[in-house]
């Protein structure tokens, strides 16, 4: 019986997330459109509201092309690896008190593990397509994810030290309900590092080098078409959402807000996650892409030393103030 309830919960979460992903693409196109003084999708439905569904149907019925010299099994598996890893990390996110599928003690580490797994999807897609653009995209993604995962992990160590736990629910509870208790204030350096690493981890502008369309056509996804291409997109948007959720949980106090919304407890969580998503899109509409060597030197020469310094600082403060 318990398993059945869990199964239904998983299905509901999956449906909500898929809907969210569809409309995240819509909001991105709308917001970027308006920032560029355009209108974005307008044709399908009122103000283009049905556009994501039309896109989904279209990509579902498109031909699934596999390149002739491709490594077929790996080629087919790569997008699924990407999506599965991202969906799995949703299991440990607490949307509100008790609104979590698996309240495990190593929640934060679990998300790291899954996000490092999702980079495999990108790497293998790049390699298996047997094309130079996808291969370059895959190599870039590999180096980028390895370097920025270090910075991101180190930036969250400060949060772990302050809260004394890896359990995401307990991290939120450790911040307390008040506005001043949010870890963004004591951990402002960590938040800065985390934010930039978050952009790089999800391959978003200004660090979207793995899929830099001006130089690599579409990066690692060049040879993909139809549903498999759509799966990569879903994985990217779920990745954005997971990273925004970690930012919300670790720095912005999770589901706590200025007042309680009793009918829908995750209200403040959703608001904060959407604020993060908006910033993602806002940055995409504003900034140009970094050069690859700049990306690497920012990661290794700025972010990692900053994060290490933050750990030492937090350690000292915690040791002297107790």
């Amino acid at each position, binding site marked *: 019986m318990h398993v059945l309830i869990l199964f239904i919960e998983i299905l509901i979460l999956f449906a909500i997330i898929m809907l969210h992903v569809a409309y995240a693409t819509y909001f991105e196109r709308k917001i970027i459109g308006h920032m560029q003084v355009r209108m974005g999708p307008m044709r399908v439905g009122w103000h283009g509201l049905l556009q994501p569904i039309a896109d989904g149907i279209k990509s579902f019925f498109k031909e699934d092309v596999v390149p002739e010299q491709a*490594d077929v099994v*790996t080629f087919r598996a790569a997008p699924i690896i990407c999506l599965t890893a991202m969906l799995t990390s949703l299991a440990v996110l607490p949307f509100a008190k008790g609104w979590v599928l698996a309240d*495990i*003690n*190593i929640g934060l*580490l*679990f998300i*790291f*593990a899954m996000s*490092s*797994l999702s*980079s*495999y999807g990108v*790497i*293998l897609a790049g*390699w298996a397509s047997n094309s130079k653009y996808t*291969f370059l995209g895959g*190599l870039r993604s*590999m*180096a980028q*994810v*390895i370097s920025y*995962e270090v910075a991101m992990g180190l930036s969250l160590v400060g949060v772990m030290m302050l809260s004394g*736990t*890896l*359990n995401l629910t307990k991290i939120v509870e450790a911040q307390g309900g008040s506005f001043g208790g949010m870890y963004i204030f004591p951990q402002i350096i960590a938040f800065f590092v985390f934010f930039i690493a978050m952009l790089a981890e999800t391959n978003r502008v200004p660090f979207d080098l793995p899929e830099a369309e001006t130089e690599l056509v579409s990066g690692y996804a060049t040879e993909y078409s139809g549903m498999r291409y759509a799966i990569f997109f879903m994985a990217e948007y779920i990745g954005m959402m997971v990273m925004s959720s970690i930012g919300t949980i670790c720095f912005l106090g999770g589901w706590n807000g200025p007042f309680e919304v009793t009918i829908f407890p995750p209200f403040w969580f959703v608001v904060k996650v959407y604020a993060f998503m908006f910033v993602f899109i806002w940055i995409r509409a504003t900034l140009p892409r970094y050069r690859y060597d700049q990306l690497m030197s920012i990661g290794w020469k700025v972010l990692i030393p900053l994060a290490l310094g933050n750990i030492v600082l937090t350690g000292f403060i915690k040791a002297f103030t107790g």
Partner: protein
Amino acid sequence: MFTYLFFLYCAVMIVGTGLLAITMRNPVHAVLMVLVLFFHMAGLYLILGAEFLAAVQIIVYAGAILVLYLFVLFLVSLRDEVKMDRFVTSAWLGRIISVGLAVSLISMLPTFVLGQKGHWPMAAVIKATHTKALGMEMYTSYILPFEIAGLILLIAVIGGLVLAKHDTPTTIEKS
């Protein structure tokens, strides 16, 4: 019952993917097999109550070390590798040795005697959470080995840098 089934599944997958990994022609496929193997290893760690190690297993082994292997495999040319013979000439000797090793190791198992019990029973680990228990042990009794491990990592970083650096004498340093 469920634990038994899970163990058997993991064991079969580990042995199967291990065998595939050492026999597959394409090294990238072999690395993928090892990736699957590491995941099942993490599953075994979970049923042994070592959740932190399971996460570290995936983050470090799958997320960093295997990616490094893939990177190096991509850097060296694989084009001829898939056509050439993948085993050394005297491979049969190696196989006989390893089978003999396995048989002798397993045949020696009945003589194994469990040593003295420690002071971290499962209940205490679960109460303190595994991460905390491991940390308590590591930063008190094993602080010196921990420091040495850090030193080893530092040496590895420097060594990797030195080895992978292009030793062209006319490198112009960017100011």
